[in-house]
């Protein structure tokens, strides 16, 4: 389980997170919603270990291990996966090669044997098929020339292959049509189980129709101002953040 206590973080001396308390028990999916600039993406980056963010207070313990202060790759090895809001392009780097390098790095850290190119391709093809992705996505360069939807699907493919224990999805649903949305939701649902938790950052109720969260949290100005069940998301969809944010202020 993920246990965040009093987490505060800033970038360029500007405080963004101002004391987050959040517990995600094993097996649960929690949604994080909130207005633009509330610190949702920052929360994802800080948990994944992006270096531009300075943690000024608090802790984030995942399955008994303090994440803060670990290298990003060590967190990945511990099972943390961040699906990027804007996936990064790697010119000249073949997607299959990238995925296999990543998967083998994770497998090594888990003490599992590495997959050779043939074993990997078999696995990757099965996943692309399941995610209704064209085969040539493996042959292309990482995210280069991908449409917005393809980039998001590529994130879901990576998640499916790396099998994280904690997935953080940063607006993976934004800009997707309804079919793609279902694919993203299915990707998370397929991983659901007692050893899997997820933080789903989203603006929209419609993802949560397919990916029913155990809890919904509203983040505003660097703090969680309200938490509730799935019905909270529906309420937000109807009446917006203004009421809740004003109430909290």
């Amino acid at each position, binding site marked *: 389980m993920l246990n965040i206590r009093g987490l505060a973080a800033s970038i360029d001396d500007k405080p963004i997170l101002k004391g987050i308390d959040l517990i995600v028990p094993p097996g649960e999916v929690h949604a994080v919603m909130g207005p633009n600039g509330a610190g949702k993406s920052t929360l994802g980056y800080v948990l*994944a270990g992006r270096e531009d963010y300075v943690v000024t207070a608090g802790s984030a313990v995942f399955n008994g291990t303090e994440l803060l202060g670990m*290298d990003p*790759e060590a967190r990945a090895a511990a099972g943390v996966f961040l699906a990027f809001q804007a996936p990064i392009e790697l010119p000249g780097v073949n997607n299959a090669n990238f995925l296999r390098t*990543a998967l083998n790095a994770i497998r090594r850290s888990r003490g599992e044997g590495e997959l050779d190119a043939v074993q990997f391709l078999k696995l990757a093809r099965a996943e692309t098929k399941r995610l209704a992705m064209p085969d040539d996505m493996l042959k292309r360069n990482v995210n280069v020339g991908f449409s917005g939807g393809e980039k998001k699907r590529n994130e879901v493919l*990576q998640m499916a292959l790396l099998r994280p224990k904690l997935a953080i999805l940063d607006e993976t649903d934004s800009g997707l049509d309804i079919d793609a949305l279902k694919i993203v939701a299915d990707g998370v649902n397929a991983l659901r189980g007692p050893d899997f938790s997820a933080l789903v950052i989203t603006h929209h109720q419609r993802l949560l129709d397919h990916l029913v969260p155990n809890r919904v949290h509203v983040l505003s100005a660097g703090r969680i101002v309200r938490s509730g069940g799935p019905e909270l998301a529906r309420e937000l969809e109807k009446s917006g953040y203004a009421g809740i944010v004003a109430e909290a202020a």
Partner: protein
Amino acid sequence: MSVAAETLDAVQSVTESGYKWGFETNIEMDLAPKGLNEDIIRLISERKEEPSWMLDWRLKAYAAWLKMEEPEWARVDHPPIDYQDLHYYAAPKKKNGPKSLDEVDPELLKMYEKLGIPLKERAILAGVDPDEVEERQIAVDAVFDSVSVATTFQETLKKSGVIFCPISEAVRNHPDLVKQYIGSVVPIGDNYFAALNSAVFTDGSFVYIPKGVRCPMELSTYFRINARNTGQFERTLIIAEAGAHVSYLEGCTAPQRDENQLHAAVVELVAMDDASIKYSTVQNWYPGDADGKGGIYNFVTKRGACRGARSKISWTQVETGSAITWKYPSCVLLGEDSVGEFYSVAVTTNHQQADTGTKMIHIGKGSRSTVVSKGISAGRSNNTYRGLVRMAKTADNARNFTQCDSLLIGAACGAHTVPYIESRNPTAKVEHEATTSKIAEDQLFYCRQRGLSEEDAVNLIVNGFCKDVLKELPMEFAVEAQKLLAVSLEGSVG
């Protein structure tokens, strides 16, 4: 274990960290006294048992060199070179000269092992039955300092009429060919370093592919600079007659040392009608230590003449070594519809300086050239692409495409692009594209978030950046080149 996998392991084991090849072998040297004068040139010529025309040619070059000045236009900076403080001749002592591979000094073979020369090549060097060596065969003409001590596969090559031998041997055994072609692409007075080389070159390779012959194997030379204070002056001449094809691989490493070493090679290529020459280089000479001390000065003149119609010359280079690189492999496209190519990766780290690029001289109608240059700078290094594309009046409908990309790692390095474009023919087309980018923090973070270490992430991004060039290299070289890139850039981020 397959040979390919073993090769990979061998390369991996020697490229784990830093510059591992800082050792010297203990083979007794036969050293000429320091300094350069006519007597030294006579000594070299005599040791090589050269005919008098060769000596005359050398002396003419020396006279030309004396009147020339060291060029200063390149973006490189070094203390003055004292040309009188170098040895111009060094040879491993030989009793009668090894007549076969069995006689090759075991020290040398051990050295190849330490160097991580791919097992396949080593096996050949060690005299394994050619039939035992799978797939594509590679013949190695090993240049140990200035004298070639092992030449292989002569029999197979002889059968197809290919001549592949040390140039000193060619001067004696094929004087007409050498006389006809040497200095015909790079004349003795071409530039300061070419003139010096012409005066004092000690050895190198000679390749002659007769009309219509496709060379049955890739030809490979491993250079190694091994003597303290010995300038290395290689001379290579490759001739492909009409319809002939050859692929030539050149790779090199050098032992670690403090004194700067001068290297001034000349490579001349000649391609006749429908002939093609592919020349690939992986250059990994000692670049100097982290403070910029030591390292090789590499002043090279490489030029190919596409003399025949539809002839093609392709240069591919991966340059990671040397303190200073001054090198512009060029193509003179004389033949109608002839093709010139230049694919280059130049990596500089610490205090390395590279000023490299190409010249594409279009003279023939419909001649085409492609230039893809990838410069990677890290540390406090400076990396300059300098390229000339010239369209002569006669070059109707000639085309050039140049792509010139620079990748910066860190904030203290420099990348410079200096393209010269001259077009005297209105139907000729020249395209030039250039980009400069930095390895972005978000690229590194993305990779690390997926579990890759920072160094693996840099390697992946750098190899991606260089892919268009690396794919032009023959398989073995591509593997070696990737490892070299990894070693060269170790610790350059963060």
